[in-house]
């Protein structure tokens, strides 16, 4: 009997000993806003795919916390006096995770793939005449016109970042997902440990050569020095469980805690909240369909401004005024191009006036189809507030409840509402992208080629292009104000405020977190 007990005890002790051995490895366990389900950040615009991409891939430039592009893979670069030719030389020692060197062939193929898929890349490549390799480390980009956003575009954050892949993956059709995730970034993707919907594992790339000088990280800029041996992006779909796991020390970092749990997290021992970067926020948008009545009439669209009291929306979504701000503009408040162009439209919350203007625009009580998202922690309460305000104005609201996945599919339909289309949906966009008129794709009005709702206005497109060609910051600010004024007049969308979600982390265990500017920066986090 005693022998059996001893054998049992040894059997139980072995796994504990193994676990102790593993404890030597420094592991960062982070819960992000979504799970890593797609490994190709060019194929999809999902933000989580870009966070994954920024761990394993590198970029030519990285925009810093002030959105200024800083060289990353590029060692040196020159711009010709006519601003038409850019010559880039890669840093020494860049290698992919399979050991092969990063060459200009890989870079050119990667940029072409990105330039065929991403909105910002497509705009840049509409001015690119040619990309030529001078040798394995140097290449030139020749423009047809002196486009002023080349470096900012190459260093952009948010969705579909301009990552550099191996040529063999970069030659994949951008409408198809690459099969391998082999980059040259500070971490390697452990594909065999990947459980989609549960966990993605990244191992430190010991061969990574960071930028010299030990530059401190600032968003995507600075020396990328891996801070831990292993990063596990754990997916916990239930926000309450994620919060409890952080309090219990089972995870170290929680990117997007639910607003309702912030007071609890603020009180929890060992846990700290950190505000994201000053422009890293979320902006709420009400998108109207410009193709069909009543919102094919600008007067009806403008009438909707009288139903928007941003405080109502923000209180319903966020609650605590510390985390939100009223922002009557489309360009991020707090960003470099914040202005008050068109903000006068918001001065008067008045359902009666809205009803009267709708009537003058020819609205006779036809049903207005609102795509009512039921499963989103911010879009759902915002839609509830909007629908209530519309009903107060006596509008005939046809609120069609559906999950976010269905809204995403339905909003792409251009048919009239009665034939499966829509009139209104509510969504959000990132403050970093929305701070720049070129990167802010939702402010565009490119008709059929634009985003859902299909606003159509040549003047807006002209101003966006003019912004990209402006040579001075003063000129850019002037254009940004004119653009926002025009976009508000045309009601490209209706902003309903701006809010921040602080990230939460175990201050007693990890260090080195930098405020987000578009994407969470994980590579520099160290474990105590």
């Amino acid at each position, binding site marked *: 009997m005693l022998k059996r007990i001893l054998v049992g005890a040894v059997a139980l002790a072995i796994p504990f000993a193994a676990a102790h051995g593993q404890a030597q490895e420094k592991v960062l366990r982070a819960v992000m806003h979504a799970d890593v389900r797609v490994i190709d950040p060019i194929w999809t615009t999902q933000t989580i795919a870009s966070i994954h991409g920024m761990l394993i891939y590198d970029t030519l430039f990285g925009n810093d916390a002030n959105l200024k592009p800083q060289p990353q893979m590029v060692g040196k670069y020159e711009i010709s006096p006519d601003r038409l030719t850019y010559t880039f030389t890669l840093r020494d020692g860049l290698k992919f995770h399979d050991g092969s060197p990063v060459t200009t062939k890989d870079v050119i193929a990667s940029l072409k793939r990105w330039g065929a898929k991403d909105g910002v890349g497509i705009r840049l490549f509409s001015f690119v005449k040619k990309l030529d390799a001078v040798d394995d480390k140097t290449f030139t980009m020749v423009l047809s016109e002196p486009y002023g956003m080349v470096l900012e575009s190459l260093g952009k954050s948010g969705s579909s970042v301009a990552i550099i892949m191996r040529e063999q993956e970069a030659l994949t059709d951008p409408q198809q997902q690459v099969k391998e995730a082999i980059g040259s970034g500070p971490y390697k993707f452990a594909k065999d440990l990947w459980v989609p919907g549960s966990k993605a594992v990244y191992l430190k790339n010991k061969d990574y050569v960071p930028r010299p000088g030990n530059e401190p990280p600032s968003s995507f800029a600075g020396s990328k020095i891996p801070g831990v041996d292993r990063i596990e992006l754990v997916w916990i779909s239930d926000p309450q469980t994620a919060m*409890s796991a952080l309090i219990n020390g089972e995870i170290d970092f929680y990117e997007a805690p639910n607003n309702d749990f912030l007071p609890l997290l603020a009180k929890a021992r060992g846990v700290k909240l950190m505000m994201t970067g000053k422009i890293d926020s979320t902006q709420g948008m009400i998108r109207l369909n410009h193709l069909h009545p009543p919102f094919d009439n600008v007067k009806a669209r403008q009438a909707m401004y009288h139903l928007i009291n941003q405080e109502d929306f923000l209180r319903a979504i966020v609650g605590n005024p510390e985390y939100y701000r009223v922002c009557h503009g489309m360009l991020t408040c707090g960003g470099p191009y914040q202005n008050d162009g068109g903000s006068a439209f918001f001065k008067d919350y008045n359902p009666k006036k809205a009803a009267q203007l709708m009537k003058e625009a020819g609205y006779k009580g036809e049903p207005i189809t609102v795509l009512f998202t039921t499963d989103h922690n911010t879009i759902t309460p915002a839609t509830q507030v909007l629908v209530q305000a519309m009903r107060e104005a006596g509008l005939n609201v046809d609120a069609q409840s559906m999950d976010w996945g269905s809204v995403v599919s339905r909003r792409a339909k251009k048919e009239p509402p009665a034939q499966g289309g829509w009139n209104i949906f509510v969504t959000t966009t990132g403050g970093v992208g929305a701070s720049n008129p070129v990167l802010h794709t939702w402010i565009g009005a490119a008709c059929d080629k634009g985003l859902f709702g299909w606003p159509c206005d040549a003047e807006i497109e002209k101003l966006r292009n003019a912004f990209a060609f402006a040579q001075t910051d003063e000129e850019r600010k002037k254009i940004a104000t004119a653009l926002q004024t025009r976009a508000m007049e045309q009601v490209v969308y209706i902003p309903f405020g701006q809010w921040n979600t602080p990230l939460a982390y175990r201050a007693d265990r990890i260090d080195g977190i930098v405020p987000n500017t578009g994407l969470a920066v994980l590579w520099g986090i160290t474990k105590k």
Partner: protein
Amino acid sequence: MTAYIVRRLFATLPVMAVVALFVFFLLRFAPGDPAAIIAGEDATAEAIAAVRAKLGLDRPMVEQFFVWTLQLLQGDMGVSIFSNLAVTRLISQRLEPTVALTLSTLFVAVALAIPIGVVAAWKARKLIDRLVMGFAVLGFAMPVFVLAYVLIYFFAVQWQLLPVQGYKPISEGLWPFAESLILPSVALGVTYMALIARITRASMLEVLAQDYIRTANAKGLATDRVLLLHALKNAAVPIVTVIGIGIALLISGVVITETVFNIPGLGRLTVDAVLKRDYPVVQGLILVFAGAKVLVNLVIDISYAFLDPRIRY
């Protein structure tokens, strides 16, 4: 018996075919489009259409069904639209946590529910019976997720005795494995326990009123022998039936429990795949669940013959 089992196994084929047909077309008729989810927030309608074309989702539905059926007949469930990984790999990655959770719940529930059901019947209309029945009503009425959060709050957050979430495979050690299953098994098992306890009590009460039980008592047999050997065995058929039905309940309960306790099992895979409209994964999972249900029913039917000698196939 062998002929019966073979016949039943063959009978599962048309059932699975009908399930496959229904799940394929119901998914396609449901609103939502994986291409729109993949293309993302900033994608234009044209970009979504391009992704849809590359995924083959723009082809006629019948053609898509034909292709999928052919793949299925070759043992290939297809690949996930999102991760590009084989559905069989995704399911096999998630099988262990779900099987472990189901078995541990079954163990906890059956091991506790049958004794308390027997005791409740034995002490019918006394305090202990009322307590057991009170527990059964409460257990059956309380939603799994409410109990789960209460357990997490006390046992994990306040007292820090057990982990909040996650699953440790048995290869990482017996205690880590057991530790990760205690709270989920209790949360999931309480409803099931309540169901089995009630049925055990009812079935036992019926049997205890029989003449042969009275005879056994009159012969002076010990109470435990009367209850366990004479009464429980004869009351077993309805109990086993309920255990079988309960396994279907467990499958749906697993979805919620796995979400709350963040266990990477088939339940969570199902929810995620449905929300993302990952058609091949949902189709594969429904077939697996349907197959499991058919097999459980078969095992239950076979067990009747062992429990009641009068039943012959």
